[in-house]
């Protein structure tokens, strides 16, 4: 179908965009960034914004900066711009791998990282990364700027802590120290489809023992999150196949899937097990 009618606004400065958003948000006004989720939702008549504030013409919003131990991703950084060579250390390799799982090439050239976060689909890979690594979002409005931690940002199915007049002005991810190990796995029915279950694991191992571990799950509950019970099981122990199996089983037992698809818990456990195995660098059949 065709998108429903709307009024189009193309601000030239961020100040102008924020003023428009403050004025139009109460009148069903929304930000248009990559549009790769919003425009299909409009075509399906699921979303009917009366005003779109297109931020694509704003200068300087597509910056990817590294400094102070963090990666900063501006609101117009497209999925395709997240590449191993632009981010140092293990985080670069991790994000490069995750990028390849996001939709398809022609969507990745246009869709934005921050747009995915603002959309907060439970199956979004970037949302899983932010929840697992503890990313920090910057929200900006005429009222000022505030930082929102990952655990506060995702509030439910496609719901975030952003106020209607707030622009998601950036994302900050902590860089990963050299030697940090990680694994990412997702199951989807076809390449590029929404994940049925996805897991990201990040681990620090020293002298054969797990010092720190983060286990994230996406596409299963109404929002992505870490699984603290399973993480706790790993700390101070050697990451053997048996321990990783136990951790994945513990993770499964703590999940609250949003649907009653009988395959979902098994898929989730399998993705967690595989991500754990990749992070630990062992083969787990």
């Amino acid at each position, binding site marked *: *179908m*065709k*998108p*429903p*009618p*709307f*009024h*189009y606004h*193309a601000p030239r400065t961020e100040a102008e965009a924020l003023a428009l958003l403050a004025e139009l948000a109460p009148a069903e006004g929304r930000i248009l960034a990559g*549009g*790769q989720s919003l*425009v*299909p939702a*409009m*075509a*399906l008549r699921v979303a009917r914004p009366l005003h*779109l504030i*297109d931020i*694509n013409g704003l200068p300087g919003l597509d910056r990817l900066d590294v400094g102070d131990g963090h990666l900063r991703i501006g609101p117009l950084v497209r999925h*395709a711009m997240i590449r191993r060579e632009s981010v140092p250390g293990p985080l670069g390799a991790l994000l490069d791998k995750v990028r*390849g799982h996001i939709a*398809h*090439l*022609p*969507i990745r*050239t*246009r869709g934005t990282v921050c747009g995915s976060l603002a959309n907060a689909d439970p199956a979004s890979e970037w949302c899983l990364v932010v929840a697992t690594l503890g990313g920090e979002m910057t929200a900006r409005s005429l009222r000022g700027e505030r930082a929102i931690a990952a655990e506060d940002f995702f509030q439910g199915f496609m719901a975030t802590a952003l106020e209607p007049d707030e622009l998601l002005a950036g994302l900050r991810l902590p860089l990963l120290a050299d030697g940090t190990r990680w694994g990412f796995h997702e199951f989807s029915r*076809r*390449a*590029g489809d929404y994940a049925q279950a996805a897991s990201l694991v990040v681990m620090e191992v020293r002298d054969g023992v797990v010092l720190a571990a983060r286990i994230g799950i996406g596409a299963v509950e109404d929002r992505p999150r870490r699984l603290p019970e399973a993480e706790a099981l790993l700390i101070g122990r050697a990451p053997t196949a048996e321990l990783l199996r136990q951790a994945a089983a513990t993770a499964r037992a703590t999940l609250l899937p949003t649907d009653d698809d009988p395959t979902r818990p098994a898929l989730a456990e399998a993705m967690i097990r595989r991500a754990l195995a990749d992070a630990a660098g062992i083969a787990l059949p």
Partner: protein
Amino acid sequence: MTEALDVTLTVNGERHAVRVEARRTLADALREDCGLTGTHLGCEHGVCGACTVLLDGEPVRACLLFAVQAQGRAIRTVEGLAEGGELSPLQRAFIENHALQCGYCTPGFLMLGTALLERDPTMSDEALVDALSSNICRCTGYANIAKAVRAAAAEMRERVPA
């Protein structure tokens, strides 16, 4: 009905002055306002890839962009692939390798394939198959499409020595 906007689209190097509603997608503007019906529309929500065009050299879904957003950008469509009446290497390879049956998805695959070849004609088979999974074809089973892109890549590699 919302206000009409005056937009100039630069398609295959030619300027088209059109007057469109904001909700007019680039795909519809190409077909209805510019008369360039080579770009096809399948699903109209970004899944099938039939409407794939190049925007400043990058493959994009023309159904997920509004025409007004393409102002000032270089748009390439399937009509621009042949030069001086001569088909591009990829177009010829599609014919020679039977990479189409009904032809509905073909413009999208040609534009996607063109973008891939212009970026990196040496791309691995795995990367090629992954990239081609962007678009849907209901006739060929994809094998001959991948074969055609590989054939065109080989021809382009021969022409431009590394």
